[in-house]
């Protein structure tokens, strides 16, 4: 089968989701009101609360939620065959991610732009808010560890990406200085920055950098992981305008370029290329390599971002909701933001199932669970781009590897920065003032401990992946339960939230239990991950209990008046 057929089926499902289901959600479930005064107007302060054009806000939202995770997850999950991954990404985006992200945005807009953490305190109780801190701490920790290993693997498997990856830091620093210190206009700076980045890609392609077998007694894997943590610590301590802001910006631009190249390659390849690409991966893989966990429930936590991700709820309610100009824009920003991420996942699936020429080539890459991952994306996508748009395979692979590394690195340094804040907050709760540098040191030590928990090569990194997915889905369950409680209180149909909630919760809880025996396996035990898993299971039970109590209360309480939000506004004005 030609990948272009799958591409169009996927695009059609996304289009139906956006034009039909999201319209239903907007009219019947969330009942968006154009006249509702959004927090960006009500609390406008020019800093956090700023009414923003919906297209720009969508760009912010989409690039904040799209990182390396929608590439890594699907690229691992096709080991069970392309059909389950394809279905989960498309249906998951339409009925799970879209409604979740849209719902989180709406719920936050109706509550003064408060974050999901604050909303969990209001709708599920104080314990719910504490639970949120625990889950977010675990999630960020796993992000740092898993992404360090993803980047390390890419730098070793694609040595041509080393120069553009580290060179991108210099480009970002120069862009930052040019924009804020020299006050140069942004558009020419952007063009020069992007050209410089792609020149580095061309340079890197001809000058691969391979580390020596042993450097100060350490393997290349250990050296890269240490270098990444040192970089992450420095980046997270620098003022944001110096590095993080220009890096995120260049990455955002790159994301659109990368998506266009990938989809363009599939389309042009199918129409004009001499070497036709077919889907070589099995539809359903009956002969999975030994040690591969069962499809149900692991598929649903292996692909978290790209189907449904709790992290999106944090972005929706943390920043996007404060900038929403009109409530009706929530459909475009929230739902279509999820569709954007679904597109990235779908592109990844196409690259890893149709990028190889034969089934044997595909099977050689997918020789064990976790072996595919982002390397398969780089290899497969590279081949697709070579045959589709004529970019040499090696250069295409360097482009994709650089894209994936930059995404992962951005997520890693932002994760370290956020985790530092969490450590400082925990310190404050314990009445110990922890300043920036010691808090960052704590983050580095704990992160390195988790990364090296299975050996100095960071072997445990991808083993953490499903656990990261589980935690992410747990966060999504928490958000969905808040949306369900709000809907019940307003006496609207809670089913669009309840069905995904129950499904995602059951799958992630089941996966957490399933993984527990793997982490305690005497031959390959990892007690650190075992401990983390136990915490996640306890947190899951806690989520379920709190959510059921909150929903029962919402059912028994008198219904919220139709004009409750409007009256709330009136009270605010009086105050």
């Amino acid at each position, binding site marked *: 089968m030609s990948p272009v057929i799958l591409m169009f089926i996927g695009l059609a499902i996304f289009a139906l989701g956006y034009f039909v289901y999201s319209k239903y959600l907007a009219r019947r479930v969330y009942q968006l009101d154009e006249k509702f005064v959004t927090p960006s107007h009500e609390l406008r302060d020019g*800093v*956090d609360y*700023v009414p*923003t*054009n919906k*297209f*720009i*806000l969508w*760009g*912010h939202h989409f690039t*904040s939620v799209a990182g390396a995770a929608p590439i890594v997850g699907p690229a691992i999950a096709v080991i069970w065959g392309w059909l389950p991954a394809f279905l989960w990404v498309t249906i998951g985006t339409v009925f799970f991610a879209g409604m979740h992200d849209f719902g989180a945005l709406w719920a936050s807009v109706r509550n003064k732009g408060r974050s999901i953490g604050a909303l969990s305190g209001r709708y599920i109780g104080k314990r719910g808010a504490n639970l949120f801190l625990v889950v977010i701490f675990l999630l960020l920790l796993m992000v740092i560890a898993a992404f360090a290993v993803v980047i390390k693997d890419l730098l070793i498997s694609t040595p041509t990406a080393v120069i553009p990856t580290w060179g991108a830091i210099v480009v970002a620093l120069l862009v930052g200085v040019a*924009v804020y210190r020299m006050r140069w*206009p*942004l*558009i020419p700076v*952007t063009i020069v920055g992007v050209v410089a980045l792609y020149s580095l890609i061309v340079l890197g392609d001809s000058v691969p950098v391979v580390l020596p077998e042993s450097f100060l007694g350490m393997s290349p894997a250990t050296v890269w992981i240490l270098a990444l943590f040192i970089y992450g610590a420095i980046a997270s301590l620098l*003022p*944001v*305008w110096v590095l*993080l*802001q*220009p890096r*995120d*910006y260049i990455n*955002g631009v790159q994301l659109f370029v990368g998506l266009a190249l990938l989809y363009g390659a599939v389309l042009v390849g199918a129409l004009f290329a001499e070497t036709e690409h077919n889907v070589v991966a099995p539809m359903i893989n009956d002969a999975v390599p030994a040690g591969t966990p069962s499809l149900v429930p692991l598929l649903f936590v292996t692909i978290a971002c790209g189907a449904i991700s709790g992290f999106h709820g944090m972005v929706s309610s943390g*920043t996007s909701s404060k*900038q929403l100009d009109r409530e009706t824009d929530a459909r475009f920003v929230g739902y279509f933001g999820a569709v954007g991420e679904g597109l990235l996942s779908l592109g990844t699936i196409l690259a890893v199932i149709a990028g190889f020429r034969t089934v044997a080539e595909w099977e050689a890459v997918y020789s064990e669970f976790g072996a595919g991952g982002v390397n398969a994306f780089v290899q497969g996508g590279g081949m697709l781009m070579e045959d589709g748009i004529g970019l040499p395979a090696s250069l295409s692979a360097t482009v994709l590897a650089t894209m994936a590394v930059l995404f992962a690195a951005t997520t890693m340094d932002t994760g370290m920065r956020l985790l530092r804040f969490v450590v400082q907050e925990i310190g404050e709760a314990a009445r110990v003032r922890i300043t920036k540098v010691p808090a960052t040191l704590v983050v580095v030590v704990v992160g390195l401990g988790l990364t090296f928990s299975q050996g100095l090569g960071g072997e445990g990194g991808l083993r953490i992946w499903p656990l990261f997915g589980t935690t992410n889905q747990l966060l999504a369950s928490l958000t969905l339960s808040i949306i369900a409680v709000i809907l019940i209180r307003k006496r609207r149909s809670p089913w669009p939230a309840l069905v995904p909630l129950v499904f995602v919760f059951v799958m992630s809880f089941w996966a957490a239990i399933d993984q527990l025996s793997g982490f305690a396996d005497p031959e390959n035990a990892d007690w650190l991950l075992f401990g983390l898993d136990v915490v996640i299971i306890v947190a899951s039970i806690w989520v379920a209990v709190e959510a059921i109590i909150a929903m029962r209360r919402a059912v028994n309480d008198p219904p919220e008046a139709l004009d409750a939000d409007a009256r709330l506004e009136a009270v605010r004005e009086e105050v």
Partner: protein
Amino acid sequence: MGRWADFRNGVYEYYAGPYRSALAREKRTEDDYFTLVVLGEALGVPDPAAYYSAEFLPTLYPEFHAWHRRMGMPQSPLDSVSCC
């Protein structure tokens, strides 16, 4: 021309938006330190540059109330300034 200006503003907004609050917070922290340095002498910390920094006092007054509240002092710490 109008469309080009819109596009330019849009690109700038795309650059600045996600970090607007972080930058504002950093600027506020820097301003707070500056206020502390300028008010050092008045708060009882000997400052050899007080003669020169006193010149800045009038520019700090509009923000003074917000500053002392942020620093955890509900009432003005200076007898000479009764902002609240």
